[in-house]
Structures are given as C-alpha cells and as structure tokens.
C-alpha cells in the first residue's frame, strides 16, 4: 500500500476575493478521491487541527483546512490570531460560507478529485459546518459539538453566532453530529431539538451523544480529551465519509 502523503500550506481565494492561508493534506497518489473541508475550532488554526487534517488524509481524502483568521492576523501564531479574532467578535457567517465554498471548489478542482466534498468542524467550527451545509452544495456535514446551531445567545453576546434553526430546511446533505452528554453548549436539550428539526425537515441525519464526555472530547492535547469516545467518534466519521464522499 502506498501511504505517502503531501501536506503543507497553500493559498486559496476566499470570500470577497481575499487570498487566505490554508493547510492542505492528501495522499500523494490515487484517483477519484473525496474531499474534506476541515473547519478549525475557536482556538484557531493550530497544530491539533493540522494533525486532524493529516488523519483524514491518511484515510484517503484530500483535506483543506482554511485559516479563518488569515485576515485578522496574517502570519501570526495561531493563538495570537485567535485572540485578535475573538476581540473583534469572531468570524462573520457570510465570510465563513465564502471561505468554505472556496475550499470546496479548490478540492473539486484537484485532478484526482471525485467531485464529492464534506465539511467537518469542531467547537465553533461545528456550528460553521452546519452553516456551510445550509448554504453550499456539499455531500456531507459533520458537526462536532457545535454550540448555537440551536438556541439564541443573549443580546450582549460578544461573538457573532446566532442559532441556525431557520436555515436547517436548506441543508444540502446528510449530517452526522457527535456530542458530549455532559456538554452545556450545546446542551443535550439542544441536541434533541436539532434532531427534532432535522426530522421535521426530512433531512438525513444521525446524532450521537457520548456519556462521560463534555465539550472538545476529540482534542488530544487538552484535559477534555476522552480517548474512548474519540476513537468511536472517528470510526463513525470514517463510516460517514465512506458513504457520503467515498468513490462509490
């Protein structure tokens, strides 16, 4: 088996025609490969996010991880860029959709693409993955513990992130949701409401809430990491990607 991989920084044209930084990882050979847009968590375009990109590349997918904070702090360390973005209120939804759309177009334009693209995001990226799925033509969405897919933040909420209830009817593809039963954002009640609304709209979906896990249980470099739940979650993601963006 050829397991050689190519990974490194690229540049794509994102929302508003802006050139933004992104990280690409993918098999060095192969044909008719699916694509994954990976949306980083609120702490930014960090080492762990790039590790996750390489993980999906090792599974046989082209992966693009856009640096959503490229504009706020070009060239800065990921944590410094995240601090700037946070102080300015986070990433506007319209810009997010444009950046993810550009990443998806880049993936579909690769010579060995099969034309199928899924999006996956963690934390704030989970909500943004659902947002992208409601506004772009995609083949799959994976929401890992995204807060405010359901629910409206208080009026003085400092970060741009409103509920997506009124957009779920536009979801273009199947959705996989992975949550921690001990999380408060999103809460188990909000996950149940997401399930209800997706069922009401007739959208193909499967949601899993893990006992013994809270927020960010995939993050292997943080105390919130829960290996048992993360291993099972990765297995569910692998199965979902095979069904939605595999070469079948």
């Amino acid at each position, binding site marked *: 088996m050829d397991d050689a991989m190519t990974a490194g920084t690229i540049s794509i044209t994102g929302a508003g025609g802006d050139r933004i930084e992104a990280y690409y990882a993918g098999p060095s050979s192969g044909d008719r490969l699916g694509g994954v847009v990976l949306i980083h968590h609120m702490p930014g375009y960090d080492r762990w996010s790039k590790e996750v990109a390489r993980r999906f590349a090792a599974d046989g997918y082209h992966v693009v991880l856009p640096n959503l904070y490229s504009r706020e702090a070009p060239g800065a360390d990921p944590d410094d860029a995240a*601090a700037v973005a946070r102080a300015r209120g986070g990433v506007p939804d319209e810009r997010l959709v444009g950046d993810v759309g550009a990443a998806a177009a880049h993936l579909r334009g690769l010579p060995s693409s099969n034309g199928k693209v899924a999006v996956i995001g963690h934390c704030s990226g989970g909500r943004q993955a659902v947002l992208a799925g409601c506004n772009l033509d995609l083949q799959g969405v994976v929401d890992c513990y995204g807060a405010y897919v359901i629910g409206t933040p208080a009026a003085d909420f400092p970060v741009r992130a409103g509920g997506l209830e009124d957009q779920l009817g536009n979801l273009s593809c199947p959705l996989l949701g992975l949550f921690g039963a001990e999380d408060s954002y999103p809460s188990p009640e909000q996950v149940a409401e997401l399930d209800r609304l997706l069922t009401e709209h007739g959208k193909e979906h499967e949601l899993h809430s893990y006992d013994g896990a809270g927020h960010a249980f995939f993050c292997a470099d943080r105390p919130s990491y829960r290996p048992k739940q993360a291993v099972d979650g990765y297995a569910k993601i692998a199965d979902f990607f095979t069904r939605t963006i595999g070469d079948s």
Partner: protein
Amino acid sequence: MCTYNTEHARITGSGKGRTGWVPLTDATVYFDHPVHAQAEHTLNIDLTGTGAAGDRIAVELTAESARALVAAIERALGKVPADLLEGPWR
C-alpha cells in the same frame, strides 16, 4: 464548553512581550479554554496595543488564582495614597 464570554477594557500602560516593551491600550478578558494551561477552562487575559498580533501579552489563570490576583491588585492599590493614583501619565 466554549463560554464565548468576552469582556473588554480600555487601559493605559505598558507591557513587556516578545519584542520588548510596548504601549498597551486594550484588555480582553474571558473564561474559556486555555491554549497552554492544563485546565479545561481558565481566566484568560490578552493585553494589546497598536502593535502586531504577536505583541499580545497573554495569561491563562485558574479561577482561584485569577481571584487571588484581583485581590492582590486591590490590596496594592489600597495601600497607596490617593493622590499618587491620579495622573497625569507622562
């Protein structure tokens, strides 16, 4: 959980970061996931000025130590004659 909570304050002073001393104009304060501290959540403070993003001066403190710091600051200020606390800044 990600709290997203973020408080802002305008400040006047200086701080020493990776490029040396820099003027500071803004503080961002939030209780959320840390980058480095091995705790699920910490009280995080970013002190910034007009410099580049990398000139940020950042701390991540447990809730207990953040409260201890606030108390220490208040004690320090409380022991100073009031007229010394008034400017002007030079």
